[in-house]
């Protein structure tokens, strides 16, 4: 079988040739079945949700890529696609939805607002959902074209195929919130939320 990505050294992989080949076979089968039938949980909030719907419609049709059934219940979903901007009022909601998804689960952050806060660098907007949930693929764009979202999904497929069941430090283990209720440290959150580029100059009212 053709490996899509190269093998990585993971703790717990056996040095025995036959066992390693067996692990490779199991990984290949499991990852292929996971990647080819990712059922998305569309957490669509704003404009990106419309492009998500357009990707689901006839012309771009992501059912071709295995996302046949959109799981509106997080308990039955594989990948959480956050399509649209996320205000602070919605932050505990996405965290709860993420917590309700069973393993294995992935997150695609669709659009500029979900990835970084987008054009909304103000009091109401979360500056990137990665301050709240761990993100696997970021799809930039405002909104990203359906082809862009499909590219992001394919990137996720590639990432899934590179995973291993026998990895002792499973990246996808639950990343719970700490006792303060945060996922990242306050310094990290402040750092990723810093304005950059032109938005540094946009805070003067007249």
């Amino acid at each position, binding site marked *: 079988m053709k490996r899509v990505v190269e093998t990585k050294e993971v703790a717990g992989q056996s040095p025995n040739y036959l066992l390693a080949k067996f692990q490779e076979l199991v990984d290949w089968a499991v990852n292929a079945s996971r990647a080819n039938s990712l059922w998305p949980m569309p*957490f*669509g*909030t*704003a*404009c990106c*949700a*419309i*492009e998500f*719907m*357009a990707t689901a*419609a*006839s*012309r771009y049709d992501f059912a071709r890529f295995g996302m046949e059934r959109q799981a*509106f219940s997080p308990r039955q979903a594989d990948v959480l696609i956050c399509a*649209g*901007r996320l*205000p602070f*009022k*919605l932050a505990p*909601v996405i965290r709860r*939805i993420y917590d309700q998804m069973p393993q294995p689960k992935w997150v695609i952050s669709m659009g500029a607002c979900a990835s970084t806060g987008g*054009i*909304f660098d*103000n*009091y*109401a*907007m979360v500056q990137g959902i990665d301050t709240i949930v761990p993100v696997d693929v970021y799809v930039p764009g*405002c*909104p990203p*074209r359906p082809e862009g979202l499909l590219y992001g999904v394919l990137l996720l497929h590639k990432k899934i195929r590179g995973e291993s069941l026998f990895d002792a430090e499973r990246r996808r283990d639950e990343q719970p919130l700490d006792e303060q209720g945060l996922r990242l440290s306050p310094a990290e959150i402040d750092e990723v939320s810093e304005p950059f580029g032109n938005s540094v100059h*946009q*805070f*003067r*009212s*007249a």
Partner: protein
Amino acid sequence: MSQRTVELELATPGLDPQGRPVRVPLPADGGEHLLLNMGPQHPATHGVLRLVVELDGETVVRCIPHVGYLHSGFEKLGEYRHYNQIVPLTDRTDYLSPMANNVGMALAAEKLMGIEITPRCTVLRVIACEMSRIISHMVWLGTTSIDLGAFTPFLWAFQERERIYNLQEMWTGARLTTSLTRVGGLMADIPDNFVEELREFTRTFPNTLNEIDRVLTRNAVWAGRTQGVGVMTAAEAINYSLSGPMLRASGVPYDLRKDKPYLGYETYDFDVPVGEHGDVYDRYLVRLEECHQSNRILQQALERLPDGPINVDDPRVILPPKSRAMSDMEAMIFHFKQVMEGVKAPVGEAYVGIENPKGELGNYFVSDGTAKPVRWRIRPPSFINLSALSKMAQGHLLSDLVAINASVDIVMGEVDR
């Protein structure tokens, strides 16, 4: 237990003079009611809307909508941006009909600054508004039929949307976030094949509408689920400040294009559908017919599209062409002033309401003489239409609540701004 409607005063007295919450008593029959939470993440709420529903069996006794889950601080952001920089923000409020939002905001800014746009720009903006009306109603039609169980019209409607998206992309470069208008004109003129493609669209679009009409209008399931559901009488609709198809389906013949015309709408030949019963079925019929009428307006606009410039000939407002800005000193100075300082508006205020697909979209600008507005208020039609949901849902079944919510045609970006 017999089927009967339980009438409850929705308004709560709030806090008593000691600051304690005043309790609303349970209904007299003593039956247990269920408090059900729908949303904010729910496939049938059309966005991030949270509905807390008090149910007596399947009957909705009270429905309390909670909004604000998409509040993005648009109006605050507008105070920190020049007028032309606000145009991209308007795409993202009502993202189902972005060009109409752009036009509404530009009209208000031009009213404030006292700018008259060119004839070609006027007709192009009418084309933009009617294209937006079609795509917005197509989303509405698609998602409402999905909510009520019919999946296929969704695909047909979205295919039509793709054709309009092609046209939008041809014109502005973007499918959804168009940022079409500038103060005093447009971002760009239409490309050469635009008229032909749009004409082709208007030729074939009624076929899709007729297909959808054949599937839904006399369908027993559709009629059974929508007739008599969510009724708002004309007097209630006026009192609740409803606008757009919600108001017209209740029998109030008010359309801003006819009653407070803008962009030369009084010169176009079109009808305004007005309903009778004010239920979900009437709203469906009104919106379907509005698509036909928009098609008619598009055909007339294409016939009368005049030649000429799209931007007003005022170098203080419109950026000079790049070639001139690089070579001519005066043009360079105008370019510099507009980009660095923005176009200054005179002191005063202006409100312009346009007939958005969802209702009356108003933009209210208050200026203190600087290039950034003191206050930018969007009068959101979906927000105000949604406030009547609790009134419409009382006494209906939970599945009717889904139909009623769909018929309000909300877009949460505009509800929450």
